[in-house]
């Protein structure tokens, strides 16, 4: 690395395919040695025009389209879209459906947080922990499959209710899964939080101040880890959450202090797994009997939707934070306007303050720490003194893993 002073700071493009996760985003880092001086990113490498498609379909068709917006958040998009349409058309959802929606919603949170925990462990080079979290995640996936019929793209929510009931025989299956997680949570917490290496790699790394979190409109665990008391399940009740008294998980309630770093984001997500178990258990015991949908016949349901005019907003707390759908109906088959605001939409801006001043080997874990629902580095090209070397995803991962080994001494 000779002669870097000549052209420092130099630019490191990462992407458009990858740093840490599944989906593509293009990063440009301005580096000074190992330190990130500034960063810019360009999302939209996989824009599919879902809203454009929705404005040419009817609400029942759109519900199935919303299932496919995200592979992890299968229920939040269909739920927020349905909430918006129900408010416009004045469709009252039966209470039992509110509870079933809540139960599936919380299972989704469990599997999403465990998936993230595995990715985070992998980014740190702690692959045995990746295997553990992803193995136990399968239990939630199995229960979701049992409840909805699908591992992903659940197809459980319909405008006006849900499409499948939870029968008494399924209670035992759910209970067994919850017991597994509750027995495991302390182990997972100690693996992640008491491990000296994870602490060194994550404490005070990728810090997002409370002020930045609020001003950049950050949502979900990313905001909560910076000490912002936001959780729609607590603040803005929907489905069965009004009955439940959920309290936002904040790091200082567990650790007594808030750093707003990667470590705090791990704390918040792991504790939310335990919280979700409690919510599901409470929902199961308090679930009222009754119908599961306001209107079984889709033709009638569509006729109701077609008559509806007005605007509505559906808003739910997805695993990654607020998910919002705005719908405008003008008495036609398809909505006049539809805007999907996924949770990562609000969180991407927070990358910039987090990544500024961090080291190149910390990029993967910081990028992953907001649990972005897009991103990914196939290769990184480092351009320096007109010599060009290509770092693949594996090289970047190796750098991160090597830093862990170095710290371990």
């Amino acid at each position: 690395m000779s002669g870097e002073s000549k052209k420092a700071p130099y630019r490191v493009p990462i992407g458009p395919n990858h740093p840490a996760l599944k989906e593509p985003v293009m990063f440009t880092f301005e580096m000074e040695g190992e330190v990130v001086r500034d960063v810019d990113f360009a999302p939209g490498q996989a824009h599919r025009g879902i809203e454009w498609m929705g404005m040419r379909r009817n609400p029942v068709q759109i519900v199935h389209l919303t299932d496919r917006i995200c592979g992890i958040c299968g229920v939040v998009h269909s739920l927020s879209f349905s909430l918006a349409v129900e408010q416009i058309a004045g469709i009252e959802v039966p209470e039992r459906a509110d509870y079933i929606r809540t139960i599936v919603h919380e299972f989704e949170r469990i599997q999403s947080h465990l998936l993230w925990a595995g990715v985070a462990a992998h980014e740190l080079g702690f692959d045995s922990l990746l295997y553990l979290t992803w193995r136990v995640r399968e239990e939630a996936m199995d229960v979701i499959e049992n409840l909805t019929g699908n591992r992903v793209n659940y197809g459980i929510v319909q405008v006006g209710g849900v499409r499948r009931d939870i029968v008494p025989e399924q209670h035992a299956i759910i209970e067994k899964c919850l017991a597994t997680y509750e027995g495991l949570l302390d182990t997972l917490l100690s693996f992640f939080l008491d491990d000296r290496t994870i602490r060194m790699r994550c404490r005070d790394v990728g810090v997002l101040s409370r002020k930045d979190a609020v001003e950049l409109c950050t949502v979900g665990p990313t905001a909560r880890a910076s000490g912002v008391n936001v959780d729609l399940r607590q603040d803005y009740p929907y489905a069965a959450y009004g009955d439940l008294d959920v309290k936002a998980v904040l790091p200082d309630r567990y650790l007594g202090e808030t750093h707003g770093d990667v470590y705090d984001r791990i704390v918040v997500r792991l504790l939310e797994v335990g919280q979700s178990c409690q919510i599901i258990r409470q929902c199961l015991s308090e679930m009222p009997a009754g119908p599961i949908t306001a209107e079984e016949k889709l033709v009638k349901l569509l006729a109701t939707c077609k008559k509806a005019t007005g605007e509505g907003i559906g808003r739910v707390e997805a695993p990654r934070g607020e998910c919002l759908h705005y719908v405008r109906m003008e008495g036609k088959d398809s909505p006049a306007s539809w805007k999907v605001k996924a949770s990562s939409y609000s969180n991407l801006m927070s990358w910039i303050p987090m990544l500024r001043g961090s080291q190149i080997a910390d990029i993967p874990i910081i990028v992953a720490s907001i649990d972005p629902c897009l991103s990914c580095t196939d290769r990184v090209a480092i351009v320096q003194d007109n010599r060009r070397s290509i770092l693949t995803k594996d090289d970047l991962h190796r750098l991160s893993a090597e830093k862990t080994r170095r710290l371990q001494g």
Partner: protein
Amino acid sequence: MNEGPLTPEEVMAHLTARLSGGIRDTSIRKWEQGRKRVPHYTLWIDLERDSLKPAIRALMEIQFPHLSVIAGADLGDAIRLLYIFSVQYGSPKSEYMVTFAIALPKSDLTVPTISDLIPGAVFSEREKQEFFGIRVTGIPDGRGLFLPEDFPEGVFPWRKDETGVPEGMVKALWESKRPRERPAPPVKEKGPGPEGGDAPSAPAPAGRSAKEEEK
């Protein structure tokens, strides 16, 4: 205003008091769910364009508001922009959504940036420029956001007039039919669609039939 959370009516009264002139219409909508029917509220306020920033300032006096997104709709002669906020997060069951809606006539599609008040708004403003073809004056970063670099200029996907996505750009994947070199499907496919000779009198089973083809 620090004795507990405000009621939705108080929030609305605070905003209307600050903006006597610029308000076209207001409504408070309530929606109840669950067994206890705990309500949540959405405050809808239609504003003149000039009152947008004063309205946001008035909202900021309550709490630094959370901007969820700027949504929009093409109404034909105007673009309706909705700035969807929420305030009083952190107070259990007392967060309200506050939506400021403004109409931009197609003859003058400009709106001032609000990123000086809410830095995180840039993201959504960039998207609105790209998808509606409006111009956000004073925006600190006016680049595109989601559309590919080679997307044609002057085409705005969410517009419903001549600047919307033209027919020729739409790829109808269902027209491409099954590739010929693929192995035959394990289950024999259903007969031809409606125009075919031996279509059953009952409606064809859902979905597939329209794209069935040569065999």
